[in-house]
Every structure is written in structure tokens, then in C-alpha cells.
């Protein structure tokens, strides 16, 4: 593996990445996945992650000493781009394991926690996130799941919801209230909770797509040891904020690259099909496609700008919210257009597909799934509050009394 010390994206680096994905992409995987049992699908995902990890592509952002690729942000974008170019499967099943676990533990965990969990997660142990609750969605700080001191550990009582892949997860990154007397943002602690124990019940929730992507988790006295606290007791809110920032920004880069290659393939197909129209009037399809393509260039330029800022050490944040709003709404537009183009063919649903990637060959599924992106990771309405208040400096909304 060529590791460019300064993290630069050279032509050699790009072609090496491109060649690797071209050689290792499990061609035909979308159809294969349709016929798989859940067990087979889990195996398929684990095998693909192990293959990616031989080059550090599974967690390209994580330092090599922790099992990642140690690539610079610019290199990560290149990897995502070449990955999307051949339409290889994603690693969504391991999203929390690959992004949030190292992101949180390397920043705020103990040495023991890092040693025990980071590499293991990158190797394919599935984690989920236990943040939202039925009564605490956008207003996350109103969460009511309690962790009560029990000996030198804790007992958890309460309910979490919208936890992606919790039905396959071994561990949960859990936010629970440890001090009911403290103010909203204080008195919350960030825990690692082993889901493989009595007192934990996981129930999958069927999504609009018909697939089971997220779950409810019921805690009834589940145990967390003293070594399961991340950061300080009652100090979990600050730790969680940094995790959410990750979710908003970097995770979108994959979708942006997939949309880009999809649009390019569509342009190529249209160009070869509509040869006779080339010099005539712009068709409605061409006009819409050109607009989406141009919009995609803008979103990609904004992401590139954000990556440049981060590489230059500007962690003031904020650009993540702009990226999230723009790429998720573009995906909704793109999927809507593709679905409309399919016409009556889009009325027929093909056998459901276990979820392994976005911007698929199935526009109606993408279209349905696009609300996952505009809602998850802080709904776009919440992002607009953040943009208005933190970036534009507009006064806070008066709080209801």
C-alpha cells in the first residue's frame, strides 16, 4: 500500500485506489443481496468490511495504530469517490462502529476503552447508538432514560428509539440521565452498554421502505460497569455533541460521491440514446438533468471547501450543517426525478433489498429512503435553527414557558 506521508492526493494514489476497487468490487452484489437471508447478508457485510480493511478503506479516517487507514481527509474523499465510481457496497451496517466509536473513544475514552473496543469495532463488531427516545427527538436534552448507581456500576431503565441496526448490535453508545436534579444539559452521562444481557430487549421497526433499518431498545435494569462511562459522570452532553457533528458532515461525503457517479452514468446514457436530439431543443429530461448535475457540482464544491477548511485546522464547525441540508435535499430531488422518469415501471416494487448503499438502481427505494437523510442526524429543520443561530448569529427563539 502506498502511503503518501503528507496526505496528498497524487495521480498514483488515485489510480491505485481505483484499481483496487475495480478488482475487489463484488460485481452483481445488488441482485445477490436480494436473495440473501439475514444471516447471509450479515456475513456478506462482514466479509466486505474485512476485504476493505486489508487496505484501511473500512475506516480510512482512523489512525493505522487503531486499525484504520490513517488517510488524510482529501485522500478519504478520493477513496469514497473511487468506491462510488464502481458502485461497490457501502458499510452502513457498521456506521456506528466505524465512525462514532473511534470518534468518541479516541477523543474522550479511557485507554482501556480504546484498547478494548476501537479495533474490534473496525473489525466488524456492530454497535448502535442509543440517543433518541419516544419523548426526546429533536429535543434530545429532554431524554428520560435513567442510569441509577448500583454498587460500583449502574442500572439502566428506559426506552431508546431509532437505533439503526440495534437488532444486530453487540454494544450501544447510550445517553442516560444520571442526575435528575441537574439542568437539562447537565446530569446526562455517556455510557457503553453491552446489549447481550438480561434487561435489554430490542425490537426492530419497519421503515417506509419496508425494510428493518432501526429499532426500539427497552432497558429494564441492564447493567453497566464503572468502566462503561465515557468522559465524566454527568458530563455526557458535551461528549455527544462532538459525535453528532461527525454524523452531520463526513458521512454525507459518501452520498455526495454516489450521487455524482450516478448522475454521470445518467448523462452518458442519455447522450448515447438521444444522439438525434443533440442539436435540437433541450428536452425536459435534459434540462432537469443539467440542473441536477449543476446542483451536484455546487454541493460537491461546498463539501470540498469544508474539507479544505478542516485540513487547514479550522474546526469552528458549522459547515457540517450546510453540507447536511444541501446533500440530503439534493438526494430527495434526484430520487424524485429518477422515480418520475421511470413512470409506471416505478409502481412495481422489486423484491426488497437489505440495505447496503445509497443511490441504488432502485429510484423509488432511494426516494423513500431520502427522508432518512433529511430527518436523521438532526432533522433539517433543526439544522436550519443551528445555521440561523450559530452561523448567522440570529437571536434565539423565545423559549416556551
Amino acid at each position, binding site marked *: 500500500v502506498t502511503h503518501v506521508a503528507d496526505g496528498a492526493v497524487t495521480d498514483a494514489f488515485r489510480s491505485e485506489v481505483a484499481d483496487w476497487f475495480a478488482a475487489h468490487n463484488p460485481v452483481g452484489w445488488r441482485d445477490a443481496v436480494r436473495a440473501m437471508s439475514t444471516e447471509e447478508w450479515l456475513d456478506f457485510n462482514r466479509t466486505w468490511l474485512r476485504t476493505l480493511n486489508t487496505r484501511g478503506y473500512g475506516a480510512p479516517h482512523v489512525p493505522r495504530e487503531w486499525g484504520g487507514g490513517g488517510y488524510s481527509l482529501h485522500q478519504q474523499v478520493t477513496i469514497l469517490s473511487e468506491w462510488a465510481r464502481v458502485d461497490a457496497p457501502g458499510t452502513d451496517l457498521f456506521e456506528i462502529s466505524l465512525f462514532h466509536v473511534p470518534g468518541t473513544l479516541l477523543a474522550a475514552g479511557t485507554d482501556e476503552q480504546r484498547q478494548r473496543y476501537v479495533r474490534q469495532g473496525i473489525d466488524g463488531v456492530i454497535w448502535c447508538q442509543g440517543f433518541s427516545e419516544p419523548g426526546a427527538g429533536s429535543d434530545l436534552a429532554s431524554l428520560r432514560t435513567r442510569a441509577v448507581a448500583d454498587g460500583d456500576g449502574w442500572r439502566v431503565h428506559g426506552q431508546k428509539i431509532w437505533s439503526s441496526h440495534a437488532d444486530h448490535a453487540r454494544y450501544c453508545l447510550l445517553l442516560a440521565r444520571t442526575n435528575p436534579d441537574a439542568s437539562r444539559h447537565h446530569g446526562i452521562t455517556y455510557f457503553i452498554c453491552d446489549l447481550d444481557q438480561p434487561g435489554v430487549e430490542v425490537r426492530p421497526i419497519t421503515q417506509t421502505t419496508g425494510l428493518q433499518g432501526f429499532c426500539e431498545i427497552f432497558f429494564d435494569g441492564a447493567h453497566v460497569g464503572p468502566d462503561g462511562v465515557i468522559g465524566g459522570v454527568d458530563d455526557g452532553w458535551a461528549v455527544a455533541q462532538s459525535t453528532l457533528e461527525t454524523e452531520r458532515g463526513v458521512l454525507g461525503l459518501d452520498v455526495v460521491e454516489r450521487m455524482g457517479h450516478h448522475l454521470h452514468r445518467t448523462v452518458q446514457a442519455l447522450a448515447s440514446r438521444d444522439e438525434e436530439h443533440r442539436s435540437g431543443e433541450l428536452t425536459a429530461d435534459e434540462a432537469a438533468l443539467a440542473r441536477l448535475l449543476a446542483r451536484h457540482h*455546487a454541493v*460537491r464544491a461546498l463539501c470540498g*471547501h469544508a474539507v479544505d477548511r478542516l485540513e487547514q485546522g479550522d474546526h469552528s464547525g458549522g459547515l457540517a450543517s450546510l453540507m447536511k441540508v444541501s446533500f440530503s435535499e439534493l438526494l430527495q430531488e434526484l430520487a424524485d426525478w429518477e422515480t418520475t422518469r421511470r413512470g409506471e415501471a416505478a409502481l412495481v416494487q422489486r423484491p426488497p433489498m437489505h440495505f447496503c448503499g445509497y443511490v441504488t438502481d432502485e429510484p423509488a427505494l432511494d426516494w423513500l429512503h431520502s427522508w432518512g437523510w433529511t430527518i436523521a442526524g438532526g432533522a433539517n429543520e433543526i439544522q436550519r435553527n443551528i*445555521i440561523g443561530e450559530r452561523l448567522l448569529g*440570529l437571536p434565539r427563539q423565545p423559549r416556551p414557558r
Partner: protein
Amino acid sequence: MSAAPPILAYQSLTDEQAELGRGAQALLTARRDDERAGADVGWFGIGIPEEMGGSGGTLGDLAVVLEAAGWATAATAVSLTAGLTAPLLAAADPPVRDVLAPLSAGQLAVAVPTADPAHVGADADRGQLSGTVQAIGGDVDALAVAFGHDGRSGVALVPADHASVRRSPLVALDPSRPLSAWQLDGVALASVTIAFVDGLVERWRAHLSLVSALDAMGAARAALARTIAYARDREQFGQPIGSFQAYKHRAATALVELKLGQALAFRAADDLAHGDTTTALAAGLTATRSALDVCGTAVQLHGAIGFTWEAGLHRYLKRARTAQLLADRPATARQLLARTAAPPATRRPA
């Protein structure tokens, strides 16, 4: 009025570029109606190599000045002279150096047709330019016209004082950019400066898209800055109106559009300097639209005062509309699709 939030400005400029931008904003505000503003300080030659008679610097440097022109809603001819005409002349085979030097020195301000280059000067095969051309630019020295002749494409610089030219001012929708009609009564190609340029039409569209996008984004930045200041100061129901979520969300959406357009337009300047027209064409289609959205939002979020002539928000709205009409058109869309289907042989790494 409170200071504009730092997020409004494009953040990836060098210190020198940021300084150039501040200088441009000040000068172009002071000389808002002067079509030659910036000519005496060398801006008309930015991006043209010194050995060709230019001022040196990059298209990225020029981009900063062009964005400032939109911000100030200034009449300066720098956009279409340095941003469109000069790079075409510099790309000519052979290059027309004798014109680039006076152009860079600000002695040759240029007007440019508002129509797509494929539709102008179409009957030049008889060796003459005829017809009426609507152009951006008023009190300038020449009109830059695209033409086809002997199977080649070129650009002709028709002097305003040419015997076969009659120029008359038009009342423009956008009061900040002079508009004129040029009647060409058989202007012999042999009597004017001409330059043959490979791929002229695509280059023309790309540069026109770029300068329009930058100009529009400048106007949008100024319009949003005024809106945010107003949102903080103006109170209704006992609260600053910017605290209300319906208002805040519209402002947030405007910022998303501003940052999308800005990132694309400045990226396009870089790409075009490396010969890749793709992002410039995309910017013409979408950044100008984003700017129009932002400027419309600015009028709306000012309420009735925003609808008055005196408040001046109409200047941004019209400025963005001009830019959008110049670049967001079917010819640009078709060019973008064609370029995407057949990408250049060597691409810059993304």
C-alpha cells in the same frame, strides 16, 4: 448596523486575495457608476500573464474583484473585459498581444452581447458583421462579438467609433449595469481586430458563466448581510424578528444557497484556469439561480421597506437577474451535458 457574520464571506482566500477584495469593495462602492473603475489600478489585466501585457495574477485573484463588483452593484466593465474578453484573446491562435496590453491598462473597456455567442455574428461568412446587437456596457471603447468565418470561430473587437457602427443606450431592467444597442451596418472583418480561438463558443459560455456567477454571488452576499442586520435590529411582537423560526429558516436557506454558489463559483475559477470548463458551466446554471433566490429572500424578509426603491434591495435582485439571464440558459445546459459526456482528456484531481 451590526457587523456582517464572518460566514458570509468566502473563507478560502489567501491573505492577499482577502485584502484585494476589501480594496475592491471600497473602490467600487466609491465609484459605483464608473464603468472604468479599477482600470487605473490594473484590475482589467488580472489573470493575463505579464509577458502578454497583462497584470499577472490568477483567475482566482480576478474572481475576488468580480465578486466585489456584484457586492457593490458597480457598473465597472472589469467583469466582461478582464473576465471574458481578455482570456479569449489570450487563448487566440496567434495571441493578439497588441490589444491585450491596452486592454490590461484599462484603455479598452469592452461591451459584450447579451445573447449566446452561437447566435451573434452568424452571417460573417461574407466577411462582414451586420445586425443589431444588444450588449452589456455603455460608455465603452469596443464591442466583443463572436463570429464564424471560413469554418473557424473568432472574436471581433468592433470599436465604438467605427464608421459603420451606431450605438444607442437602452433603459436597463438593472440600473447598475449599462445596456446598449449596437447597430452594425456591414462592419468589414478586415477593418477591426479579430482573433481566431479554438473552441470559442464553449470558452465563451464558460467564462460568461463564471463572471455571471461571481457577480451574482457578490450581490447575494451583500443582500444577505443587510437582511441579517435588519433581522437583528427590527422588532415586532416585542422580539427581534430574526428570532422567529419562520424567519430564521428562510435566512438559513438563503445561507445554504449563498455558500453553495460561492463554493462553486470560486472552485470554477480555479478549474477554468486549468482549462476545465465543467464547473464554470455548472456555476452559470445554478449559482446564478442561488443568488436570485437569496436576493428575492432579502426583499421578502425586509417586508414593505424591502419593496421600496429607496431601500435599494432591488439593485441586488436585478443584478442577480441580469447574471442569471446571461448564464442560466439552454445553451449552457447543453454545453454542460456535452462536456460531462465527453470529459477533457486530463482532469484535475478532485
